[in-house]
């Protein structure tokens, strides 16, 4: 069976006065029913633009979209705006980052859920209201029959996000896109929301895309992970692959800049130097090369001149866009993880090592 969602060579460009913004520049991936895909990347890597593109929310803007987005075999890029609108909210739904600003302040939470349900289902207000109360209960809102008449500002942050989830699930979507669903929430609430998403996913059987810059979030939820950089795919693979044996220097950077339970408490985090590139003037060759520590390992000026193709390395389904050879990657990652992720019994030594700049520098 074909996957629920197939994205093929998707490009989303915006024409601006300053030049052409290549927000998404040729990405491809697939997502099966019941699976979760995590899209990871820094700000401006094109994750949100991709998700808005799938939802057809770039309509009416100056976005130029090419490639294919097939939902259940139906191409959304060439479909009429009205057809995409019909699918939006019913077959695919979205949860946004900031639940306070994403809900209309003048309507009750219940009204907003009822509205979402009634756009796609010809039912009476009473039936829709019962459905809304039921949904609020399922996402864990206490006494939903009274809270349904509350306004968003009377909810706490976590409850608002629960309500947003209820709204998104109102029409039983096959695809749920969560765009940084926990970024605006307290740390204590984040875990609850993630639990809720994964519980509901198994209940509703939807495919889920989680967009985040937080590797902890994707580690918890995702089956597969897509690492994006400058509008392109840097690395794609199963969660086990990405966390176990990452193949792209950018992924290494992300992983080493994240605190981990299995690392010594005093070990320093290693940031990725520099800032994400402008999407108007994307660096030539590999877009990551100005920030990459391994260009010399590749040798010559290859990283600056030649765009690395997305290639499967060892495991099928695990691909990275990097000029490093498989052997080089294996060695570099082994060195890097030895320096930053020590074995428990050697922890003190490793701390010292990590503290020294030489230990972090690639040879």
């Amino acid at each position, binding site marked *: 069976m074909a996957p629920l969602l197939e994205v093929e060579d998707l490009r989303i460009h915006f024409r601006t006065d300053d030049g052409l913004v290549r927000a998404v520049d040729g990405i491809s991936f697939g997502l099966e029913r019941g699976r979760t895909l995590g899209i990871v990347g820094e700000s401006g890597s094109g994750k949100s633009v991709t998700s808005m593109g799938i939802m057809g929310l770039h309509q009416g803007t100056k976005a130029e979209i090419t490639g294919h987005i097939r939902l259940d075999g139906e191409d959304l890029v060439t479909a009429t705006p009205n057809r995409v609108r019909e699918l939006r909210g*019913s077959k695919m739904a979205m949860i946004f980052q900031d639940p306070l600003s994403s809900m209309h302040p*003048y309507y009750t939470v219940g009204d907003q859920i009822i509205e979402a349900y009634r756009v796609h289902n010809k039912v009476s207000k009473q039936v829709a209201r019962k459905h809304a109360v039921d949904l609020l209960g399922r996402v864990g809102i206490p006494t939903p029959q009274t809270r349904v008449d509350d306004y968003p500002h009377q909810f706490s942050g976590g409850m608002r996000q629960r309500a947003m989830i209820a709204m*998104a699930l109102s029409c039983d979507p096959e695809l749920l896109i969560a765009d940084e669903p926990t970024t605006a929430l307290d740390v204590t609430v984040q875990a609850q929301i993630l639990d809720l998403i994964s519980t509901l996913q198994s209940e509703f059987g939807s495919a889920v895309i989680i967009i985040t810059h937080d590797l902890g979030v994707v580690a918890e939820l995702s089956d597969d992970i897509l690492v994006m950089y400058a509008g392109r795919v840097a690395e794609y693979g199963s969660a086990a692959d990405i966390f176990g044996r990452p193949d792209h220097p950018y992924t290494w950077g992300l992983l080493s800049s994240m605190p981990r339970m299995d690392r010594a408490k005093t070990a320093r985090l290693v940031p990725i130097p520099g800032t994400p590139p402008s999407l108007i003037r994307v660096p030539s060759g590999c877009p990551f090369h100005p920030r990459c520590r391994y260009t010399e390992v590749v040798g010559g000026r290859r990283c600056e001149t030649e765009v690395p193709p997305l290639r499967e390395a060892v495991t099928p389904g695990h691909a990275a866009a990097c000029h490093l050879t498989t052997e080089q990657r294996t060695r570099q990652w082994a060195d890097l993880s030895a320096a930053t992720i020590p074995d428990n019994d050697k922890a003190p030594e490793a701390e010292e090592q990590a503290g020294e700049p030489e230990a972090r520098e690639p040879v």
Partner: protein
Amino acid sequence: MIFFIIRRLILTVFLLLLVSAITFAIFFLVPRLAGQTSYELAAQYVGRNPIPSAIKAVEIKLGLNAPVYLQYGRFIKGIVAGVHYNNGPDVSYCPFPCFGYSFRNQEPVWPQLISDAPVTLSLAIGASVLWLIGGVSIGVLSALRRGSIFDRFSMGIALAGVSLPVFFTGLIALELFSYKWPIFPDVHYVAITANPLLWARNLVLPWVTLAFLYAALYARLTRAGMLETMGEDYIRTARAKGLPERKVIVKHGMRAALTPIVTIFGLDLGLLLGGAILTETTFSFPGLGQFTIEAIQNQDLPEIQGVVLLAAFFIVIANMIVDILYAVVDPRVRF
């Protein structure tokens, strides 16, 4: 909600008292603080070349020699209940609401205000309906077609509209549509009770003139508000639900964008009800604005005082209605 309204009503009463105190202070206290004696104050109420005994009689009649707080009490009593004037041999009664007697014709001020009010009311309400519909719809369309020819054209006109004074546009309108092409000849006020058709016909030009100024302002405000609102996250949510675009614009966009417009509208209307001075003068409509001008030109203190109090009353009441309306529209205000 009901407590909010009660609180707001109590506040309104206090505001009105404060307004009356300030008005009283301007007309009775400030001259005194500036060194004017009650005799000199009374002299203004008597007319040209008065004899001292007449001035003295007025001083006693109006109670100008009494302590200030008693005078204020009498002033308030006159407004809310009517007051007796002691004219020496006989006692005259100024019925509620008493704003005193005008200098010019020795008539009570209130009935004059009341007779002029319908003119201003007709003008202000008619124009406000026009500018609200016109301004808001142009503003919304401009925002939705931002950068289009329609947007540029209407915003250009709007800029002209807010910059041109009523006495300019009014005179141009009169010249064009009353004299050159007499579609609306002989513009003068006719009471609605006398001839509703003529009333409406003669009001078209003043309505349009006044509405043009405000519509321009409202179009710009609405456009700015609409542009801001349509960029909000909840608009994206509404689209993500799969709502038809028309519903996104009307139910989610306009609902939020127009709320502040309601506030400004209430205040503008309240202000105009106190007299649309320029428009009334341009078209020679005998409304409260004209009344004010004449009162000032004649230095007729009781008349000025009456019109100031009435205008303040309209503004305070408009404020209250706006506040209550806002609480109805925006649930966050209620708590």
